[in-house]
């Protein structure tokens, strides 16, 4: 959420146009899936897709990797799978934890946005900004809708691409999302169109931005380009403990997609996201992924380089803070075509007993010649009680491949602190400076207002970390 736009939007509770007699219940049943589909008035194929996904979800075992201990604590029977906005609004500001309120205060988030971020208000809008944006995009032929509207208004495009990149069979959580998805973005960029301004998720109207089971689909047609941004640095309070999104990107010939995410969930949240992209001939896909907060985040943006000369890049940052937090993040790049290139840059910081893991896969298929890839993962540990692990996997089935891999784990060295302090910086300032420098490769890729916010947030996080 760009703070600069603060005063440009208003918030308000939205009158629900639909008046379905739907009472959310805990647990996941066929009835719930059917009523979600019915309420959304979906075409038959989507309903069947959901039901099939539900079967897969039931059958699939939990992943046997990642933080299995925490994963197995998830009680699927005790979760609401679909909550209508009107019900969400019943949550009150008083229920929002004090530490979250404090952070809003200190970040200077205005009242309206706080309520939205805290999940008290289901949505907020920037009618004016959104409207003019929509007009401009319309002229270009760009489609930018929430996924539900996308399905209603462009059923053919959705049907053609939906779940082609992340099928429900992929993993238990992809299956879950497929069965109960709601919200998310649907974007289509016509051939040769360059969308100059980043498309921000929160410009979407009439949707649940922070949906539990978001589903996003972006198609960049030949020679087009787009930058999509979702999330915000301010902590997002959610009483829903399980968030499981699916994101699919399709970059057709010579297209370019950059997808930037910054997430900072409250500490009760499991954030288990499947993000995957396909890059066709000459296409470029870049994932920028910043993960803070949550109880457990498992997220490995992947890119399938299926066309010659395609390029994929993943830059990720994770901040694991506190012994009740595990960031298990990374990247997957699959080189299928020849002359494809990729770069993975992963940065993690762990402090106060937090745990950060890098999990990565670099795969080169047989027949993919002249592939180049660089993998660099750096971990910074701010104290002795925190933890950092790397789990890199390489499967290379071609000879003519150029791979560079570098991994470092470091601490803030006393000598560096002394150096900076000798120039007048306090110990706290010196540590923060080193941390900011560490994050710089990620931060410098962000739009200005996000970069400023992120630095401010890290500053807040770091406060009191001394002594």
């Amino acid at each position, binding site marked *: 959420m760009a703070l600069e736009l603060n005063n440009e939007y208003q918030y308000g509770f939205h009158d629900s146009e639909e008046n379905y007699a739907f009472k959310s219940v805990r647990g996941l049943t066929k009835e719930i899936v059917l009523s979600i589909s019915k309420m959304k008035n979906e075409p038959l194929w989507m309903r069947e897709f959901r039901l099939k996904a539900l079967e897969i979800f039931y059958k699939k075992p939990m992943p046997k990797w990642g933080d299995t201990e925490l994963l197995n604590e998830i009680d699927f029977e005790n979760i609401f799978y679909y909550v209508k906005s009107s019900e969400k609004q019943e949550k009150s500001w008083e229920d929002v934890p004090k530490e979250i309120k404090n952070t809003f205060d200190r970040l200077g988030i205005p009242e309206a946005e706080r309520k939205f971020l805290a999940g008290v208000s289901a949505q907020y809008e920037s009618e004016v900004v959104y409207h003019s944006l929509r007009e401009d995009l319309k002229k270009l032929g760009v489609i930018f809708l929430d996924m539900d509207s996308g399905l209603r208004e462009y059923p053919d495009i959705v049907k053609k691409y939906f779940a082609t990149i992340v099928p429900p069979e992929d993993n238990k959580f992809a299956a879950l999302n497929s069965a109960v998805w709601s919200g998310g973005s649907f974007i289509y960029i016509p051939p040769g169109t360059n969308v100059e301004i980043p498309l921000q998720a929160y410009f979407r109207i009439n949707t649940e931005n922070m949906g539990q089971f978001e589903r996003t689909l972006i198609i960049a047609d030949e020679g087009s380009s787009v930058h999509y941004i979702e999330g915000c640095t301010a902590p997002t309070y959610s009483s829903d403990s399980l968030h499981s999104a699916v994101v699919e990107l399709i970059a057709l010939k010579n297209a370019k997609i950059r997808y930037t995410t910054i997430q900072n969930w409250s500490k009760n949240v499991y954030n288990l996201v499947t993000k995957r992209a396909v890059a066709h001939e000459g296409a470029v896909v870049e994932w920028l992924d910043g993960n803070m907060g949550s109880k457990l985040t498992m997220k490995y943006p992947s890119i399938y380089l299926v066309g010659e000369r395609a390029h994929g890049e993943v830059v990720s940052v994770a901040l694991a803070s506190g012994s009740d937090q595990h960031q298990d993040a990374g990247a997957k790049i699959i080189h299928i075509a020849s002359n494809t290139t990729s770069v993975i840059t992963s940065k993690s910081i762990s402090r106060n007993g937090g745990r950060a893991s890098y999990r990565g896969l670099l795969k080169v298929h047989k027949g993919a010649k002249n592939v180049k890839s660089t993998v660099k993962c750096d971990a910074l540990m701010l104290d002795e009680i925190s933890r950092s692990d790397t789990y890199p996997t390489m499967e290379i089935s071609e000879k003519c491949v150029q791979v560079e891999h570098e991994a470092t784990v470091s601490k803030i060295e006393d000598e560096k602190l*002394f150096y900076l302090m000798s*120039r*007048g*910086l306090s110990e706290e*300032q010196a540590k923060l400076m*080193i941390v900011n420098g560490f994050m*710089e*490769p990620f931060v410098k890729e962000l739009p200005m207002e996000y970069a400023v916010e992120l630095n401010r947030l890290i500053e807040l996080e770091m406060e009191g970390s001394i002594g």
Partner: protein
Amino acid sequence: MPELLKIKNLQAEIDGKKILHGLDLQINTGEIHAVMGRNGSGKSTFSNTLMGHPAYKISSGEINFNGTVINDLKPNERAKLGLFLGFQYPLSIPGVTVASFLRQAHKALKGDTASPRDFRKLLYEKMDDLEIEHAFATRYINDGFSGGEKKRMEILQMAMLEPKLAVLDEPDSGLDIDSLKLVAQSINKYKEKNPQLGVLLITHYQRILDYLRPDKVHVFIDGNIVESGGPELAVELEKKGYDWLAEKEAAKA
């Protein structure tokens, strides 16, 4: 000239190992003192102890800087009083530009609120004085810098932070003759503009003293000053080496 630094019977250790053995030294405002000694004689231990490196413990004695006993002050507190250390081995801080680092340091020491623009102007002026390319402002601190570049950036930092006393720990080490000349000229230029600046120049070789005329020269052996004199002492050392002084010391003991 008023006293700037007065050290009495300074003893310091690291990891329980005693390195400085009762050192006395006085530097007045505007003076240049050279401390010369072999590798391992304790020169860096001395400079680190002066600046307050937490690993070095003062076991006895007193460091009085500009009227304040600084034994127990943190490095940043010492910096605030006007003490500066040019490091023998400057550290690199990836991701932090020289400009943003210096801006924050400048702010911390001088409490100024110069706009980013005014600050940049000031930085460029100082860079021009020292003939350092502006491009260095946006490079990460010492990241991939050559030996000579690192040493000159230390002088730039000194020029920006305007200390009362600059302790320069081997600004000449590891440099070829041209780089050495550049570094020495930078120090000279700054010193000419700031005659009040006291300098404690720690060096291993006499050569840099051809460019920087010290008021006093001290010889450091085994963690203490064993001989003090004028610039001629440096010349004598160059000719005779350190052995004669070491022998003299040994005879005393």
